[in-house]
């Protein structure tokens, strides 16, 4: 499956910056197609060699499990990504990722990212700037939710899980999102 640069740029503008098609090509070359079916497990929480998942079509659901409970964190739609941290710091996948509908994604491993940095530093730099921007937002959101101040808690609570799964949570989610 060849990835159309224009469509990728539309879906992931932060990851593409101002890269033209030629500069974007090395990034698209290292991305591997990952079609998925409804209910299929795409990524397992705690598994090593996790891959970042970039959603092109359809939706994926993020879940997190503890010994006691499994919680649905949200549903990611096209243009969102998850499990990007192992691209930067190899380690365990943060969440379980399942196909919420059938769809298609592309994935990238730590090794792919290292190769991109080595061979195409200018492209990797733009891509990494997009990841950094997302991490920065996510960190600020986490801090605001964990320790909310009165004027901002309601607004930021709604945004805080945006990095996890957008704004729509399945009705049976046990995460008390309204109470955060």
């Amino acid at each position, binding site marked *: 499956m060849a990835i159309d640069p224009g469509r990728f740029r539309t879906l992931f503008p932060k990851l593409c910056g101002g890269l033209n098609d030629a500069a974007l090509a090395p990034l698209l070359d290292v991305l591997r197609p990952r079609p998925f079916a409804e209910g299929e497990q795409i990524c397992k929480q705690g598994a090593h060699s996790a891959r970042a998942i970039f959603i092109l079509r359809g939706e994926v659901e993020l879940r997190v499990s503890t010994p006691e409970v499994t919680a649905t964190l949200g549903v990611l739609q096209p243009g969102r990504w998850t499990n990007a941290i192992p691209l930067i710091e190899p380690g365990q996948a943060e969440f379980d990722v399942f196909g919420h509908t059938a769809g298609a994604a592309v994935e990238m491993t730590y090794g792919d990212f290292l190769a991109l940095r080595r061979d195409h530093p200018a492209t990797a730099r733009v891509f990494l*700037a997009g*990841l*950094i921007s997302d991490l920065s937002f996510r960190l600020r959101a986490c*801090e605001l*939710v*964990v320790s909310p101040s009165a004027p901002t808690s309601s607004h930021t609570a709604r945004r805080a899980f945006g990095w996890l799964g957008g704004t729509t949570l399945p009705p049976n989610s046990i995460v008390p999102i309204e109470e955060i």
Partner: protein
Amino acid sequence: MLDQLLENDWLFDDFSARELEQLAGAMVERHVYSGEVLVLEEERPDRLFVVIEGAVEVSRQSDQGDRVLAVLGPGSMFGLVALLDRGRRAATCVARGPGKVAELPRDSFDLLYQSNAPLADKFQYAIARQLARDVKQMTRVLLAETLGQ
């Protein structure tokens, strides 16, 4: 020498000696005293910090009073988010005892972060690594609280 201290920092383990020297040249090393406020919540950011010696406590004011979010040890970078998103400081950072930090002024940070030099690529990656670690830590806290762990 600051570059030798930075050499032991996990964030800069892929920097060459020359690159460490360049980075150290843009930073200011100084002692801090116990209880010194290095970053104040809601302030406009003017610098980035790296803990060289000692510990720094990160906290936020909340409806229930001050809440400690993390304690940073040597090798940690802090004060990043507000520099990146041009917002205000999200937390207060206070020295837990006497120690030493290295400071990178905002102008130098911007210059380094936005430059195309190889050093800038490594600096950007160091920032990403620190943020990745911070996000993992905060996500653990957030999920533990929301899942009642």
